[in-house]
């Protein structure tokens, strides 16, 4: 057993992990954070996207042993109590959700993008969600939601 220290959604954990254990398995099976989804397990669909030190990564293709001393943010860490994060709010307002399976991944890709670039273009957004497949709504609503979330967040910063 290998011991690692990670911070997940602001909380520190010391965990014993297996050499082949993925970050996705740790999050879901050890920490009970089932918002992050297993889709294809091959890096195609992006349902497992989380933020690792602020960057969007595929948790199904990340060995948890490699995340030692790093910071992870999952969909559960976005909202503040009952209050949704502006990205989540925009997804709801724009009907960017249908079955919901791809939603946590899309939202986490959007979160990493907006941390880096507060005023993205339509093309920036489409590029950064290229690794998130949605088989229900398509991409119009999610793209619109992310662009609107950027506006919301910029508005908050102005205050």
């Amino acid at each position, binding site marked *: 057993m290998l011991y690692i220290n990670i911070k997940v959604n602001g909380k520190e954990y010391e965990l014993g992990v297996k*050499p082949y254990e993925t970050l996705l398995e740790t999050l879901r099976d050890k920490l009970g954070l089932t918002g992050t989804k297993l889709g294809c397990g091959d890096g195609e669909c992006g349902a497992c996207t989380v933020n690792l030190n602020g960057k969007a990564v595929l948790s199904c*293709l990340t060995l948890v042993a490699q995340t030692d001393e790093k910071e992870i943010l999952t969909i559960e860490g976005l909202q503040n109590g009952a209050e949704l994060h502006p990205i989540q709010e925009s997804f709801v307002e724009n009907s960017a959700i249908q079955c919901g399976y791809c939603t946590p991944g899309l939202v986490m890709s959007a979160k990493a993008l907006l941390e880096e670039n507060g005023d993205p273009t339509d093309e920036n957004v489409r590029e950064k969600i290229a690794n998130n497949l949605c088989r229900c709504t398509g991409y119009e609503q999610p793209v619109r939601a992310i662009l609107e979330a950027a506006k919301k967040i910029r508005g908050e910063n102005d205050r």
Partner: protein
Amino acid sequence: MRNIFRPSEFRRPKDLHETSWILSSFEGRARVVAGGTELLVHKPLDVDCLVGLSKLDLDYIRNGRAGITIGAGTTLVKIEESEALSVEPYRILREATRLLATPTIRNTATIGGNICNASPAVDLPPALMVLDAKVIISGLEGTREIPIADFFEGVKKTVLSDDEFMVEVKIPAFPENTGASFQKLRHHQTSIDIAIVNAAARLSFAGDTVKEAKVAMGSVAATPIYSKKAEEILKGKILDVDIVKRAAEAASGEAKPIDDIRASAGYRKRMVTVLVERALEESARRCGK
């Protein structure tokens, strides 16, 4: 033999020697892991030990008088955003990186992983080949430096012995009047979307004459290859449409592609002509020719 990916150990060595010592002690059953985006898709069954290189500080891009050095553990996102790599002719590395996999994969995948997996359809090696890149390999006996084209021995096969791993990629400085280009043909921009064919070129001019020419292509043989014939045709010439065409056709003649799910061999050969022609035209244009 197990039928499932179950390495029993994960090691994080603190220096180069310890890394080689661990690798050699597993006699070929240890595997270096960087981003993991290739390893965890293939989940090889013959691996007993994973060796993470995060403590070796191989994540850097350094710009010096002799050229540029890139640590093997440098993530692709750093390469595509690197200021040092934004100038001619290095910028083809940024361009080739941006055409590779997806932004999410590029946040974790590394240049060393891209090279060491030795896929025939790999993108960065043809670009690195025309930039005369060398790779630095570390082993029990110390380090050795070899031209990147000599690193590959076949499909998924490299010159690395059991105790060796890649630490750095070195690209020399180039004279003024050097231009390069990378071209890739593929179906879609998703993470499975590897090249049907790719090609890279570099031209260095003395006045209007081609002083040096390099042409490399991928996905047309077991390893990425140079087109020596194209280089001979171009060298010492003043470029015109005819010479570019002849060089591109020579490259196509040297390509030995196969038929597979993505394209037929015949189509690949024809596309080599198109891509090499475009790469040469763009290289020339980038030096104002």
